């Protein structure tokens, strides 16, 4: 059961990763992250189930498409509102979420029903640790989610630490003005970050598809990623992963041990507690404000 929680938590973590990437770089909180995940899942569904491509090829194509979608979103919707109050920017992303959700519902072939993607992963249990050592049974689907999350984190970590572009992104997230002076094209870096974040949302969507099926309202699951991101500290990438896993586990346990109803709100109760007790989260840095 804890494993199931970890696997759900990894999905939250992937979505939260998207939030954190965007927030860290551009200080925009993207309320449409769940919708990006939904779009990614639907694209994968189109490639794999409708066009009949290979699973890996379809997934790759969906991720690449979402990268482009993220780029365009930033270019078209977010760049014009730079400099407006945070409130307006948040509302723009909410509006984008509305549009994405209903547009997906109107696409021919997508519609408002639920769909499944056929995956190469079996959903039966698989014994990892032999029974003599205290058996641990885990389904391939869950395992795929966990492995993919850690792979993605490793790739992102490597990207941010070792590549030129990654370092440029770090710089522009720390101080936009200074990095602009240093010759970093901050605007296109922002678009790239949106692209990466949309791509990681697509990964989350594809991995989630076997467990919860795809429909246009799966984006609401993305809202669960808020507690994860806040718990980990809103600007921290490892924090997002750890926060996601913790939220996933707590939610599963709450569904089992507490009266019904607590499963849905457990994450939010934790969110409120964290915000009151330790607003900077587990891994966040505390920032002071100098006038």
């Amino acid at each position: 059961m804890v494993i199931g929680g970890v696997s759900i938590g990894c999905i939250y973590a992937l979505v939260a990763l998207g939030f954190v990437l965007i927030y860290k770089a551009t200080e925009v909180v993207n309320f449409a992250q769940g919708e990006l995940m939904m779009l990614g899942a639907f694209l994968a569904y189109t490639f794999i189930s409708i066009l009949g491509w290979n699973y890996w090829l379809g997934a790759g194509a969906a991720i690449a498409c979402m990268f482009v979608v993220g780029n365009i979103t930033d270019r078209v919707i977010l760049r014009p509102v730079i400099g407006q109050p945070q409130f307006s920017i948040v509302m723009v992303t909410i509006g984008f979420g509305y549009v994405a959700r209903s547009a997906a519902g109107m696409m021919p072939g997508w519609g408002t029903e639920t769909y499944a993607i056929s995956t190469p992963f079996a959903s039966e249990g698989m014994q990892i640790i032999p029974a003599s050592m205290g058996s641990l049974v885990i389904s391939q689907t869950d395992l795929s989610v966990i492995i993919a999350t850690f792979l993605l984190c490793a790739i992102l970590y490597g990207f941010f630490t070792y590549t030129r572009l990654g370092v440029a992104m770090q710089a522009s997230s720390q101080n936009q003005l200074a990095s602009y002076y240093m010759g970093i094209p901050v605007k296109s870096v922002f678009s790239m970050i949106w692209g990466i974040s949309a791509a990681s949302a697509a990964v989350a969507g594809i991995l989630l598809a076997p467990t919860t099926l795809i429909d246009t309202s799966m984006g609401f699951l993305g809202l669960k990623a808020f507690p994860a991101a806040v718990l980990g500290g809103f600007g921290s990438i490892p924090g997002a992963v750890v926060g996601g896993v913790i939220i996933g586990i707590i939610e599963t346990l709450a569904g089992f041990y507490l009266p019904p109803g607590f499963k849905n709100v457990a994450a939010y109760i934790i969110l409120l507690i964290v915000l009151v007790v330790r607003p900077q989260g587990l891994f966040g840095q505390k920032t002071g404000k100098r006038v």
Partner: protein
Amino acid sequence: MRFLFKTNYEQDVRLAKHSGYIWSYATLMLILLVIPYLLDEYYIGQLTQLFIVAIAGVGLMLLAGYTGQVSLGHAAFFGIGAYTEAVLSGNGMALPFMDEPIVFSFLLSFPLAGVFAALAGIAIGIPALRLVGVYLAIATFAFAIIVEEVFSRWESVTNGYSGLMVESIYFGDMELTDGLPFYFLCLGVLIAVILFSLNLLRSPTGRAMMAVRDSEISAQSMGVNLAKTKTTAFAISAGITGLAGALFAHKLGFLSPESFTVLQSMELLVLVIVGGLGSLHGAVFGAIFVLALPQGLAIFKDFLPVQLAEQPGLEPLIFGLILVFFIIFEPMGIYGRWLKVKLYFQMFPLYKKATFKRQKSYMKSERLK
């Protein structure tokens, strides 16, 4: 163009700046008093609904437009007001030491609905003191989701998803919560709330709220008590929204948790933004927009090809598009547009586009180091 020469301070804080205000608002009042006698019942209902939504809009406007605090959870306060009213005026409140539950009269339960919502506002306002911007938005959002869950699970009081009937209120023989009397009740509450807000905004509390919106640091240096101001703003805003909720309960006649979801909060926010942040006119304009949009779409649908018109997602799509377009192209909302049109005619051949243009746009950072 009219030039106002102010000769004393009284003139500066006066509600009606010049005789034009008195004339135009008196005409508006007259129209609103006469019009229900000319329209049929459906439109009276729609106008009543408009007033209720506008009350909630004014509530949120005080918080979002004047204090600069984002709330993604105003439907929760709306719902608390509605359920308080429904429970207190219906089954009544059962206290452990009393045999019969107390059933409140409307005159008492209606203010109590506002008070309960305001208390909830204080409860969420206190943690909000330590939070800024995005964190506050997320906290209110979490609060709204928890409250929604409470509405659906606390079945002994709210009856859960099976819903709660709301009793009608009678004053003598007259049914207060239907038709004309209800229209005038809602109109009266709306006017009272707007007058209250106008007076609040020219009082020290209101000015402190606006100072907090414009810059917390400079407000603090001027001696504004941040904690007190923010909590007051939350309480007042939640209280007004709660009053709207109580009226809404009677309008609907039947409550279920689905009426108070996060989507409802979003709709209130759209109202505030499309109407125009930072103006009470905006709250009313926004309410007109939010209610007129579905109606307009229904008419518009007849002209669309059937495949497109039958799509269930059409309404949210247009809703989202309008929201995005407003923020990108007209951040001051309908009221801002109205001001521009007015100025255009006032200065007729001399109007310059640049009057309202923002000089520079910076990326504003919340985490200064």
